[in-house]
């Protein structure tokens, strides 16, 4: 019986090995795990197919479990391109000299964070965060991932800036849900009273009818800031041939498959530069996430 099992294992694993073995130079990219994994895998496999077609090289997407893992893989040259958030992009480009932000979503120029609250808290939506000092104080609060721009950096900045105190001291309990979808689910279920998430995730879930609007609502929107972008390593031309970076940039800017764009969700990609993310760097330094 055991031998039989081994035989099966050997055969099945041979398939796996052959499936993974690709040509010598595979262009590998990753993305920060900011949403449910199934969605990400589906989305980025589509992107991998698209890029492979446009660039005429093998392109592979690898999923990672944390924002830091995405940054590390980029820094270690195990991936050459990444879909980063504002903060993870700044971290990555600091660590890899010569790397560049090459494209961002149309929506990423002016991104927002939504503060959402479970309706049982009876917190009323407002234009000014300072109005919420009394209603929010002592409630429970969840960020997204520790390394997220829209789920951690910006909400923490505005909490500190407005209430003059650390989130841990302002709220009775502060958690890190892991990603934006989970923040939404946890606040909707009432596990946390309040949460902060990426406005695009909220809008998309809302239009897909996945939010119980009787249970959770938006209570405040942050001012706009730059967020997600594609960042590429500076040494890709040496490895994949002259002009490769330019070709990747063009392929991303020309991406017009509506289904693929919808999955991000972005209406299209536009050029970006490292300087666009200066405000993010300053904010991160201000709250002590970046040295």
């Amino acid at each position: 019986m055991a031998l039989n099992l081994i035989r099966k294992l050997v055969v099945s694993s041979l398939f796996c090995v052959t499936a993974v073995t690709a040509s010598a130079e595979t262009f590998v990219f990753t993305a920060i795990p900011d949403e449910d994994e199934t969605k990400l895998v589906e989305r980025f496999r589509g992107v991998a197919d698209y890029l492979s077609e446009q660039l005429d090289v093998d392109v592979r997407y690898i999923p990672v479990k944390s924002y830091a893992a995405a940054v590390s893989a980029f820094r270690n040259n195990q991936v050459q391109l990444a879909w980063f958030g504002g903060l993870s992009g700044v971290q990555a480009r600091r660590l890899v000299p010569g790397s560049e932000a090459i494209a961002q979503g149309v929506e990423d120029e002016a991104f927002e964070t939504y503060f959402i609250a479970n309706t049982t808290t009876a917190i009323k939506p407002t234009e000014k965060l300072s109005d919420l000092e009394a209603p929010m104080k002592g409630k429970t609060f969840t960020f997204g991932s520790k390394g997220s721009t829209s789920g951690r950096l910006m909400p923490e900045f505005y909490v500190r800036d407005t209430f003059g105190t650390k989130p841990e001291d302002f709220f009775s309990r502060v958690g890190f849900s892991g990603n934006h979808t989970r923040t939404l689910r946890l606040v909707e279920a009432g596990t946390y009273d309040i949460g902060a998430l990426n406005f695009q995730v909220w809008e998309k879930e809302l239009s897909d009818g996945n939010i119980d609007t009787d249970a959770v609502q938006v209570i405040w929107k942050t001012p706009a800031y730059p967020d997600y972008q594609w960042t590429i390593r500076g040494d890709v031309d040496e490895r994949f041939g002259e002009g490769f970076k330019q070709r990747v940039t063009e392929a991303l800017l020309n991406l017009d498959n509506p289904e693929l764009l919808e999955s991000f969700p972005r209406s299209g990609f536009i050029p970006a530069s490292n300087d666009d993310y200066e405000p993010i760097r300053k904010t991160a330094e201000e709250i002590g996430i970046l040295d």
Partner: protein
Amino acid sequence: MFSSPTVRTSFIFLAIALVGLLFADIAITASNPWRDLGNFFLGIVTPNFFSSEGLMTALLRTVAFAFVGVALGGVAGFLLALAYRSLPVRMFCAFVRAIHELFWALIFLQFFGFHPLTGVLAIAIPYAGIFAKVYSEILEEADPEPGRALPPGTGIISAFLYTRIPDCWVKMRTYTAYRLECGLRSSAILGFVGLPTLGFYLEASFSQGLYSDAGAMLILFYVLIATMPLWVRPKLLPVYILGAPFFLGEGLPIVWGNVQRFFTEDIVPAPLRNGEGLAGLAPWLNDLMINEAMPGIWNTIVLTQIALVATGIISLLAFPLISNHFGGPIRRNAGHVALVIARSTPEYILAYILLQLWGPSMLPAVVALALHNGGIIGHLIGRQTNTIKLRPDAPNGINRYGWELVPRVYRSFLAFLFYRWEIIMRETAILGILGIYTLGFYVDSAIQNIRFDRAMVLILITALLNIGVDTLGRYIRRKLALKTMPTC
């Protein structure tokens, strides 16, 4: 009653845990925890084995990483055991085993990245430290008589191979096989940080509330562990060990420059790296100690002490489940299944599940640690009661439990409990990665902020704390004259 040192010790620890409860953050914050728990069990009974295309590959990788990691750890541990008398070797072993597999994985991920070596070393290194300790204890206990019977002039190696090894062989084999089971658990949870083992898919399914998918993975994992006696056969072992390296997956290639960079730049404390010299080091270290290390140590200790006592209570409640002295065969078989599930599920996975269902606080961690460790100790104590012969007119039910059995097994119960003290603390620290504010939380935060210098200092502190508790545990066991065999 209080004149007995074992009873006194028990009450002291109980009191510490009760005081700890006053400071601990124990709460169910989910608004509907029982509905979620219900959904989860519904998922377990309606498993979906065809959810993920990668599931079978993940299972195969889990086994492969376990075999390669345990085999390497075993060989290295055996060699270290031979030199275990030397103090530096003992200290080295104590140090490497004080750092949890997941911490090792997080370290290697920073420079080997998603290469199979990351997972293999994450298992092999701490296991080598544990193997070295246990093998050396086994070799120590070998009967010296056969060695004295040898003619003068016999080589050291021959003497070792012909007199010591035969006496220790069975014990070493049993322990190694047992360690393999631990290796499967370790291998599975490595997926939580991104290696291609079962935990990778389990985390993905759970976080999305796909309980039927998660249920299928857990069931497959239990079957894998429960059927080990069927597929782990001595004759097949060479095949597995030689074959396993080919099934680790390819991962991504190692860039060796990263290794050098990690050791010469990343882990050098920021003030030194930026040329501020020793003057800058003090405020840096001070900030780290006050804002991260101290709260982390405090929470780790509080949670460990509560979990230790909860483990003890669960063990004492659970052992009758498999004891021959109570109930019929049906209850005992059900009891066996319950305890197998409790001890086969790694604490990390149990805590992860409960955190998802009940919301974040220390409670899910305490329950997870108590269930897993209580399952292990309950199983061992239960088996021990089966060797006890009672008088035909011995009392029944609660009297039999309280007056006949518990007093007889209490000393070995305490021995197991203090043996596992250090293990519970190591797990407590690591559970911080899931969002409970123990040391692992601060290690994870430092890594998320790409501050490996801070992460390394915190891991070092965690290791020292573990070594401290291990020493204290051994001291108490010696003081109470408790003897035990190793568990993982």
